[in-house]
């Protein structure tokens, strides 16, 4: 009952349409990939399924970042860490599924451990042969890290650029740690050569299609969850913390608790995105922790439009689609293009592509009605830093 009313508060027509679109894609893409013959123009080839599956994972990661940055004013430059941790948890499950089909044919130890001359499985690899265990780790590991990190940081009232810098340090520290062979996560090669997921071969067309569908449904579900959260009183409080943290505190709320909720939920979403990503791309290695990855996510969100539900999704798809095109056509220029895009959006589209679209529609509507749009005070949206009172 309560959930239904909360849903009604948060979900507008455009969000509902996006959810419907994703659910539709979850059904239609597998059908067009599997059932339609390759000669047909409606056939969706394997590389497209994988590519769009990847984009949807990125979109979920961008949505997660937008929840903390766009709505709560916490500019995390380390969200890639939660994505990678979810990915590693899934990777460990997939490694254990290889069994004795590895190069060294050890029924328990993954190849890299045999190569390093390890005799037995490290304690933290136990349980990952079970999917339910891995699924729990996908949620709990990023969630617990975010909770612990956020509890310390928000309680000490670390905000603004200082917080951004320590999130960046967090992901960099994990990058260095996961590079080390004796950490037990495959060193710089990471985890790869996966065979099965839940008993189905990872490379099979049907599995590929199912993974795509699962990703689309997960994204649809988290769009609904995010819309529900930001439409609730708690969501309004997140915005209040973003815009006037001390005011929120002096009317009796605890901004650190509100931030902690947003940060932890966001990390869980990022972890799930990473877990869906790994079986589709077939590898997870420490480069996923690279600080540049996390910064790229910020750019997707900024381009799409932060503080909106659909902005980050649009931004992630748009930028990555452009990236795919660029890296094929003009590989040397991609980073310049990305930088230019970011600068252009920051200067000319402070509310991103979604904001531009809304503005254009409002302008068109008012032209039709003959009403001049009020040129009012554009409220300041802080970049995660609060001006001192």
């Amino acid at each position: 009952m309560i959930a239904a009313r909360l849903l009604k508060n948060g979900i507008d027509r455009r969000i509902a349409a996006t959810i419907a679109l994703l659910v539709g894609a979850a059904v239609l893409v597998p059908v067009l990939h599997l059932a339609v013959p390759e000669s047909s123009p409606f056939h969706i080839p394997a590389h497209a399924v994988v590519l769009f599956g990847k984009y949807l994972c990125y979109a979920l990661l961008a949505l997660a970042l937008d929840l903390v940055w766009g709505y709560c004013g916490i500019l995390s430059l380390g969200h890639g860490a939660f994505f990678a941790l979810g990915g590693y948890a899934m990777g460990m499950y997939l490694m254990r599924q290889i069994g004795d089909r590895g190069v060294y044919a050890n029924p328990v130890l993954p190849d890299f451990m045999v190569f390093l001359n390890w005799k037995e499985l490290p304690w933290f690899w136990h349980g990952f042969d079970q999917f339910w265990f891995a699924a729990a780790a996908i949620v709990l590991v990023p969630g617990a890290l975010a909770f612990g990190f956020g509890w310390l940081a928000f309680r000490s009232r670390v905000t603004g650029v200082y917080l951004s810098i320590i999130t960046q340090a967090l992901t960099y520290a994990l990058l260095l740690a996961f590079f080390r062979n004796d950490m037990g996560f495959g060193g710089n090669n990471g985890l790869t050569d996966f065979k099965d997921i839940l008993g189905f071969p990872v490379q099979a067309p049907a599995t590929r299609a199912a993974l795509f569908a699962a990703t689309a449904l997960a994204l649809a579900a988290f769009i609904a969850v995010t819309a529900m959260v930001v439409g609730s009183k708690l969501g309004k409080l997140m915005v209040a913390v973003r815009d006037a943290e001390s005011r929120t505190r002096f009317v009796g709320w605890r901004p650190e608790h509100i931030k902690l909720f947003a940060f932890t939920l966001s990390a869980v979403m990022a972890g799930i995105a990473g877990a869906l990503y790994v079986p589709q791309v077939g590898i997870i290695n420490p480069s996923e922790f690279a600080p540049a990855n996390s910064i790229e996510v910020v750019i997707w969100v900024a381009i799409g439009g932060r503080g909106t539900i659909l902005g980050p999704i649009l931004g992630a798809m748009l930028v990555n689609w452009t990236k795919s095109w660029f890296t094929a056509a003009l590989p040397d220029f991609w980073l310049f293009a990305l930088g230019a895009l970011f600068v252009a959006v920051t200067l000319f589209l402070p509310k991103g592509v979604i904001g531009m679209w809304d503005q254009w529609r409002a302008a068109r509507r008012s032209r039709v009605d003959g009403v001049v749009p009020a040129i009012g005070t554009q409220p300041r949206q802080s970049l995660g830093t609060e001006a001192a009172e």
Partner: protein
Amino acid sequence: MTKQHTILYLDGVSVAFDGFKAISNLSLTLGRNEMRAIIGPNGAGKTTMMDIITGKTRPDIGDVYFDGVHDLTRLDEADIANLGVGRKFQKPTVFEMHTVEDNIALSLKSPRGVFAALFDLRSAEAQGRIDDILEMVRLSARRGEKAANLSHGQKQWLEIGMLLAQDPKLLLVDEPVAGMTDAETEETGRLLKKIAQTHSVIVVEHDMHFVRELDVKVTCLHEGSVLSEGSLDFVSSDERVIEVYLGR
């Protein structure tokens, strides 16, 4: 006045920042449902005193008690706010991106937990309270508008409305009429007097006309302690006050 009969009791409070004594041996009491005006030149410690009462700054020594029993030096901002101390900042601070009505709704006294907020559905009773407060601060007509679109004076009123929504016993109001037109100033005076009928209020103000209009006991601070206290006429004829304001 004994501690038990006060809403606010400060005794021998001192605080120093890097050796600079912002508050030194300040003692001040406020009775229940009393309104007090605090005046004093810049740097007299008015804002620091507010910071101490609301838990933003911890005093080095001294006692600060609310309602006779609550030791405010041991509590943080959120605890103190929930005990019933509302604070209006010098620069009007409202939630600019939210509607006027939401600003009040977010401040309304309610369970302050994260999950209580997540599953909160506004009750008819809460809506009634919101309507009453909007009526009182004369913003009913603009309830659906973003707070960012309000005039400076209206933001001040909205912030006072947010304090009222907290259902406080004591309101600390920092320069409520700074930057207001004469008509708005007059309206604010009326509003504060009405609030003072059922709440204790401390008003920090520079505008002497406004202080005279409030017609309440005045405390003049200087260099972090009380210089003079009494009616406005008494305080403004005090030799030491004149010296401080006009310079030697």
